[in-house]
């Protein structure tokens, strides 16, 4: 797991691919490449949100553990997407679980250090938050569509 590999991953990943090269190098310093075995958690509800995940390969499910029902899967994020934004907002705590469904590789950025760099470099902060907002908006839109349950059977028709 070399710095070069991480840098290459940042160049390929849609979230960071068109970022200034200097920023990429800066982020590569605070990142590691991690592979998750199927069924392992990337993050867990209630824990400190100390990482930002760029999914390079694989499939991650956002889950919530519900008593008597177990872990319920709500949405998935796949290669080219990101997982986790609670690291960017106080109180920097995860609200859900995220689990690898298949073998998954991610660039994992250290959130504390990323926040520090963002507070020193407003341009970087703006860039990252704006991208994050796009992702969050897309997830929210998709969630709302999921809520509509568009494929549900139509209501009973009253006889004409």
């Amino acid at each position, binding site marked *: 797991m070399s710095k070069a590999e991480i840098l290459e991953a940042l160049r390929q990943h849609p979230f960071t691919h068109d970022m200034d090269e200097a920023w990429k190098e800066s982020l590569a310093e605070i990142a590691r490449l991690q592979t998750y075995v199927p069924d392992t958690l990337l993050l867990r509800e209630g824990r400190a949100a100390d990482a930002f995940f760029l999914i390079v390969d694989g499939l991650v499910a956002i889950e919530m553990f519900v008593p008597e029902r177990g872990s319920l899967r709500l949405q998935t994020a796949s290669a080219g997407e990101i997982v986790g934004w609670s690291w960017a907002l106080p109180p920097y705590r995860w609200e859900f679980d995220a689990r690898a469904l298949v073998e998954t590789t991610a660039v994992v950025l250290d959130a504390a250090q990323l926040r520090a760099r963002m507070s020193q470099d407003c341009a970087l902060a703006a860039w990252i938050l704006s991208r994050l907002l796009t992702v969050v908006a897309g997830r929210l839109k998709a969630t709302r569509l999921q809520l509509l349950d568009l494929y549900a059977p*139509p*209501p*009973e*028709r009253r006889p*004409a």
Partner: protein
Amino acid sequence: MVSLGSRTLTPGQAWRMEKTRLQELLDALRRQGYTVIGPRIRDGAIIYDEIQRLTDLPIGWTDEQEKGYYRLKRREDETFFGFAVGPHSWKQFLHPPIFSLGQARRNGQGFEWTPSTDPPPRYAFLGVRACELHAIAILDRVFMGGPYVDPVYRARREAIFLIAVQCTVAGGTCFCASMGTGPKAPPGADLVLTELPDVFIVEIGTERGAALLAEIPCTPATEADRSVVEARLEETARSMGRQLDATDLPALLYRNLEHPRWEEVAQRCLTCGNCTMVCPTCFCFTVEDVSDLAGAQAERVRRWDSCFTTAFTYTAGRPIRQSAKARYRQWLTHKLASWWDQFGTSGCVGCGRCITWCPVGIDLTEEVHAIRQTDSALTSERR
């Protein structure tokens, strides 16, 4: 060209016919096997039904029409056709309100159909107005002008003998002049009558019309006669009860589909569908399957329908056009805008029936005017 004695009758000619000779025209048609349909009075209105004698006609009657208002009144003369159009149109004879398409019977292999084979009646229409000729031409395009031809309409249409009457009286809700559909009759009728105080001027439209007129003693019409006819038509055109500015009407309506006027009309509209029933060009119908109690025999029936019903747009459990606003908007924009895209003409012939027979007096000329006044293209604020 038809020759009888010393006369040669051809399409394009005009002849003078004594009014009472109209009876002979009716008789000649009946001898040829036609059932003559014409105006007569029933239930306080002038409707279309079979006529045999001249006295069946509403001679000496006229109608007063306004929005939501229709009354018959006696005239001071004995004009044969001194009235405008009533609640009936000719479409019921060409596009039957109820029609059995066939019977199905179960057999060992499933089922088999016995299509309906009743020969369609042979009608002669007496008293078809200019707007109604346009309406029939419109229905011709709807049912015979597309990739499929409706056999039910075609079988009826082919047999019709058309005797037009050019209006010398404009109705209270008429606006054919605005729509370019009258009062002068377009080509297509076999004979065109214009009633003058003492005589009918009969213009021959087709060979068939010539052949029929050849059986009736007439004298050639003069240039003066033709001038009188033209003058009467011009006068009628000037005295229309309504106007409609049809300039760029499709574009106007298409860019105002969210205009607040639709909401406003919806407050008044009962979605009763009267307008679609009386309109001479509304063609929507439904297809229904019914079976007897034993389930051994089934029938397929087609029946007039109206876009104003909620069931009309039932898709996957609920209607697409749920609100009255959506349904009124559909009717009007279809009639005045989409019809152009579908059939190359307006769907409206300016007959005014929808205005007269609307129970709450909705007048589409007013609605169009209101939208035009506050057209979204005029306001700087985009909707």
